[in-house]
């Protein structure tokens, strides 16, 4: 029995020692120290365990307990108003709860700095609260304080505005945000003025960006902002009209109206102008007979002003023109058939009807041609003679007579033989030759032209005749 005791008892002691050396117990001893309020000792114990521990869960628990220890030490330092020590310990606690306390410490120090007129130092502490303790309830108050200091101490409106925007974005309708509006409203008019100055310099995008940024926040000068935005859109629309970008201009006018409905009358007039400009553009396309494009522009006018009467009239007009063109083409074809059948009076009549519906030069030429053919059929030589004698208001006859006068200076009248106009049939249908001879004993002038009765064209057939026509 004694031998058994000798073996078993040391074994049990060894087992108990081993169990006591296990990880869980090391953690527990640290936690017990924490519960007993021996925070520094607990931290030492837990630090040692964290370095050698193998179980991540126990290490995590150890780290959490260690954080709680630092927090307790930090709170103790705060009680003793040892702020620097408190800051160091709370930073080591590194938890959301510690951050709240850290913010309180910074806030206390900031107010001490303000009391000592050391605003830059106070601003440093405020920055620390905002940057390092983002979960603190003090932040709205701190941001309001910063806005006040930016305005009163630094006279930096931009910084104050930037701070206010952050305050509103993070804590809308918070009591400190509402209180900060009073300070912000004091400089917003100058911001609006600056934006208007940009607009005057035609920096419209920058001006709008500024105004829209201000507009996002609950500032007092809302009406004026909307008015200025409307003005800028209007100015941009006018430029687009000058550049003939009517669609863009229309959109801009509508935006201007959206932001300032009181401008309705003035803007409606401008919109009517744009609609009219669309009609003009449609008319341009109508002139070149691009009906699809013309209708598209007329319809765009309706997008601007629904049931715009001038647009309706323009569309009706375009439809009539389109109908007349089609009708003229049909009549013209009938005229061509009549012409083919040599019924020139009927053809002329039909071509004239087509021309009445659609003033095409082609139709006019055909009418003239039919007129010529009618005369050519009736008295070809007489018609040929009338063409040559009336050519350019009798130019040829006048020049021939001038030539004759020159000859009369050299010859007696009886020595000159004047043939007068002689009309002869030429080769080709409706073609005749017109001759005029001046013969003297020494020299002879023979003028000859070919006349096309169909189109009244006159073609010189020798050099002399050609020269005479020039």
């Amino acid at each position, binding site marked *: 029995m004694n031998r058994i005791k000798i073996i078993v008892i040391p074994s049990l002691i060894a087992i108990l020692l081993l169990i006591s050396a296990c990880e869980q117990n090391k953690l527990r001893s640290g936690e017990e120290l924490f519960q007993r309020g021996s925070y520094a000792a607990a931290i030492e114990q837990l630090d040692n365990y964290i370095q050698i521990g193998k179980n991540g869960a126990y290490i995590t628990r150890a780290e959490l307990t260690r954080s709680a220890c630092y927090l307790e030490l930090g709170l103790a330092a705060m009680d003793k108003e040892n702020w620097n020590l408190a800051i160091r310990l709370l930073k080591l606690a590194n938890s959301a709860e510690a951050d709240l306390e850290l913010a309180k410490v910074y806030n206390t120090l900031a107010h001490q700095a303000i009391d000592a007129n050391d605003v830059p130092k106070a601003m440093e502490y405020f920055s620390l609260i905002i940057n*390092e303790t983002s979960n603190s309830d003090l932040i709205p108050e701190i941001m309001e304080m910063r806005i006040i200091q930016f305005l009163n101490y630094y006279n930096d409106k931009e910084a104050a505005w930037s701070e206010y925007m952050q305050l509103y974005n993070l804590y809308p309708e918070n009591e400190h945000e509402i209180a900060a509006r009073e300070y912000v409203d004091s400089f917003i008019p100058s911001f609006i003025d600056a934006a208007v100055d940009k607009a005057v310099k035609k920096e419209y995008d920058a001006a709008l960006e500024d105004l829209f940024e201000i507009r996002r926040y609950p500032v007092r000068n809302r009406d004026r902002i909307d008015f200025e935005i409307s003005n800028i859109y209007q100015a941009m629309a006018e430029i687009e009209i000058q550049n003939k970008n009517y669609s863009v201009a229309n959109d801009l006018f509508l935006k201007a109206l959206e932001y300032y409905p009181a401008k309705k009358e003035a803007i409606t007039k401008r919109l009517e102008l744009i609609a009219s400009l669309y009609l003009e553009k449609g008319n341009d396309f109508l002139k070149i007979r691009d009906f699809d494009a013309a209708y598209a522009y007329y319809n765009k006018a309706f997008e601007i002003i629904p049931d715009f009467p001038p647009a309706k009239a323009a569309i009706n007009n375009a439809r009539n023109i389109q109908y007349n063109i089609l009708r003229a083409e049909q009549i013209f074809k009938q005229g061509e058939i009549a012409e083919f059948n040599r019924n020139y009076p009927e053809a002329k009549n039909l071509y004239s009807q087509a021309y009445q519906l659609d003033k095409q030069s082609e139709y006019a030429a055909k009418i003239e041609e039919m007129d010529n053919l009618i005369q050519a059929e009736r008295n070809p030589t007489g018609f040929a003679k009338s063409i040559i004698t009336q050519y350019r208001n009798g130019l040829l006859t006048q020049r021939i007579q001038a030539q004759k006068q020159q000859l009369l200076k050299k010859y007696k009248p009886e020595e000159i033989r004047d043939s007068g106009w002689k009309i002869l049939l030429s080769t080709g249908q409706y073609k005749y030759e017109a001759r005029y001879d001046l013969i003297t004993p020494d020299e002879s002038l023979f003028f000859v032209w070919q006349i096309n009765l169909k189109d009244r064209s006159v073609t010189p057939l020798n050099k002399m005749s050609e020269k005479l026509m020039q």
Partner: protein
Amino acid sequence: MKKWIFCLLLIGLALQLTAQGKFDVDAFTNPEKYGWKTWEDRMNYRYDLYERQKLLQLYEIDAQSISGNLLKSAVIPGWGQFNAKQYTKGEIFLSLEIGLLGTSYLLYDKALTNYNRYKEATQIDDINRLYHNAQEPYQYSIVFLTLGAIVWGYNLIDIVQTTEQYNAELWEKTVKNYYNAPVQITPTGFQIKF
């Protein structure tokens, strides 16, 4: 013996006092002592710690108690190892224990039989022979019993380490599953990663 213990206590106390005398507040409260040089470092650490804290609840569901496994292995050697999913170890401990204690019991039984015969014997030769025959198995029985006790003791030591190892691996597995799984079960509900 008592003097030695007293001396050891004195030395320990002196070391403690020396250590306390060297306590450096600046070093103890140095905000960078854990390697957090910037605010971002502190936030990164905090985020990591919060993430791990969320996993603690999941870990606790499957974590095994050392005392529970110790009790099991104390009652039936190898049971705790089985529980900690160390089946081979469990089988070895159980079979060793059965073998050693069984052998011890058989030898003891044999020794007891011979001993009873020895008590009933009347001849001096029989008395000597039976006594010798009772003594030898008894001694072997004690040896096997001792070995059984050693194995039992080692089984208890082992179960502590095995359970700690199991828990450590469980944590690693929990962390790994949490960060890799597209759908995560968290203490506050489900989280789906896309």
